[in-house]
């Protein structure tokens, strides 16, 4: 072995000089981990493709139906209104949220199922820096991915929208809020899924919980005509966060038709962030307390 330090220096000196674990280093480690798995790379690519494809489909068919002679006039008016809704190109968000939820769950449960977590926690025995670094990498990657996905969604829809005089007004504050909202909403979903994964540790259980929440619980609460459900539904994480993608006029309209609370965009997003924060705190406490 050629690497043994000959250092006759006292151990204390050697120790002071030893490379320490720092948060930027842990972040770098998590960054390497993220991009060195095929599954995560594929998930990122899938997010972009799903959002682009759904945007194109939504805009293309909405435009076609809006101008089709066989469409009834009141439907055509509704479709034209929809075509001018900047949220239309983000229709893919509904599917993409499932993809980023899977990503959030897998980047942490994959470590538990393979035993990797023990390597992670022996390298970072204080544990929490590893959790925060992973969360931050997930947030950064999801954000970047959704920005790219939105650009693609806009590009594939631009021609159709333009020809219907519905081109996105990037200067409008509401359009900006909705586009940023798509990014923040999906990043929030990814972090929520990540926290659930960190708490449950087992991929199957965590996926069932997250997808069950997004696809079953929230949908049931939204649709069942039970007053309790209708009152609580707006405060469930994905429902609340999704308000960021809704135009103010749609929110006002919803308020005239329902007795249930309809949250303002940023209020809804704050509610979602509160869920994410609580879940992450529970995950952090669990990680500190439980054996790995």
């Amino acid at each position, binding site marked *: 072995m050629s690497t043994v330090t000959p250092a006759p220096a006292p151990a204390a000196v050697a*120790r002071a000089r*030893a490379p320490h674990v720092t948060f930027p280093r842990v972040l770098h480690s998590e960054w390497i981990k993220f991009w060195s798995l095929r599954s995560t790379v594929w998930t990122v690519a899938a997010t972009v493709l799903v959002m682009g494809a759904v945007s194109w489909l939504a805009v293309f068919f909405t435009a076609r139906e809006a101008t089709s002679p066989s469409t009834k006039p009141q439907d055509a008016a509704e479709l034209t209104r929809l075509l001018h809704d900047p949220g239309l190109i983000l229709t893919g968000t509904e599917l993409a949220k499932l993809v980023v939820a899977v990503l959030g769950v897998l980047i942490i449960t994959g470590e538990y199922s393979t035993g990797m977590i023990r390597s992670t926690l022996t390298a*970072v025995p204080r544990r929490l820096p590893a959790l925060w670094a992973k969360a931050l990498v997930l947030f950064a990657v999801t954000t970047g991915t959704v920005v790219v996905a939105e650009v693609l969604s806009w590009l594939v829809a631009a021609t159709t929208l333009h020809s219907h005089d519905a081109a996105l007004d990037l200067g409008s504050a509401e359009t900006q809020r909705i586009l940023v909202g798509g990014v923040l909403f999906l990043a929030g979903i990814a972090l929520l899924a990540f926290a659930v994964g960190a708490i449950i540790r087992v991929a199957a259980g965590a996926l069932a919980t997250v997808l069950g929440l997004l696809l079953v619980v929230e949908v049931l609460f939204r649709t069942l005509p039970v007053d309790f459900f209708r009152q609580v539904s707006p405060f469930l994480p994905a429902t609340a966060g999704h308000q960021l993608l809704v135009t103010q006029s749609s929110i006002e309209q919803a308020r005239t038709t329902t007795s249930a609370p309809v949250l303002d965009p940023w209020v809804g997003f704050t509610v979602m962030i509160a869920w994410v924060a609580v879940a992450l705190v529970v995950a952090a406490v669990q990680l500190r307390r439980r054996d790995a």
Partner: protein
Amino acid sequence: MIQARNITKHYGDKVAVDDISFTVAAGKVTGFLGPNGAGKSTTMRMVVGLDRPTAGTVTVDGRRYAEHGSPLTEVGVLLEAKAVHTGRSAVDHLRAVAATHGFGRRRVEQVIDMTGLHSVAGKRVGGFSLGMGQRLGLAVALLGDPHTLILDEPVNGLDPEGVLWVRNLLRQLAAEGRTVFLSSHLMSEMALTADHILVIGRGRIIADAPVADIIARSSGTSVSVRTPEPGRLADLLRGPDVTVTPADDGRLEVRGTSAQVIGEAAASAGLVLHELAPHRGSLEDSYMSLTADAVEYHATGSPSTAPTTQTAPVPATRQAPDSKGTYR
């Protein structure tokens, strides 16, 4: 130096480690032996903070593992070969672990060279053989050039060349003043590698002594003597600590004293000796008798695999054929 003070670990109702204290000294290879389920891995996991002791503390060079600013230069750990994401390549795994301490690409290349992983470094770990996984685990353990090494079954699945390499490496690291703490079920290998032995059974430490002392306690350690007057010699030698057993072929098996004492006693009594041969017991013999009461998972199919009582004499046929300590 690893110091455990009264550490206890419960998993639900089960007591995995029961109030044990021990010190693993620097500059030596300390072997950690015990039957399956005795608490070896749990103890090692507690040293590096993966499991939290129910009670007690364990420190490495005076601090709890998690309190070290640079854990990987402090302690290198191999707890199980595949604590690695199966979808990641060996080199990416090493890069990711190295990044937490800011070790560069060069250090990663060095440990890949040291552990002979070159040909598979770019391949995904999921397809690795047991031995290759073990080499990767060793590479991670060596990444920080640590003061202390904690290795659970490091040679498990390694080829003979790999076993020899690990043995020499560990002896060299100990000679440099580092602390080496390893578990293994391969007694002959342990006898060659370790200076000191810690035996754990049913969650308690049942022996903590230098290898030589452990082997000397073995029921297999005896002196074989041949003389024309066995009766007289036996009377001469028998004492409170010394037992003399006649063997079938006329030899005497003497336990509890040395060949030197026997030879001198015979000479002063004017007795002729035709043979005076010390038999060193093996570490395996000692281990078997030490842990006879502590084995939790007996193989019931073949009763010969484990002695049933602590005092049962060990038949000659059970001596480890490959043990360096055995003279025939």
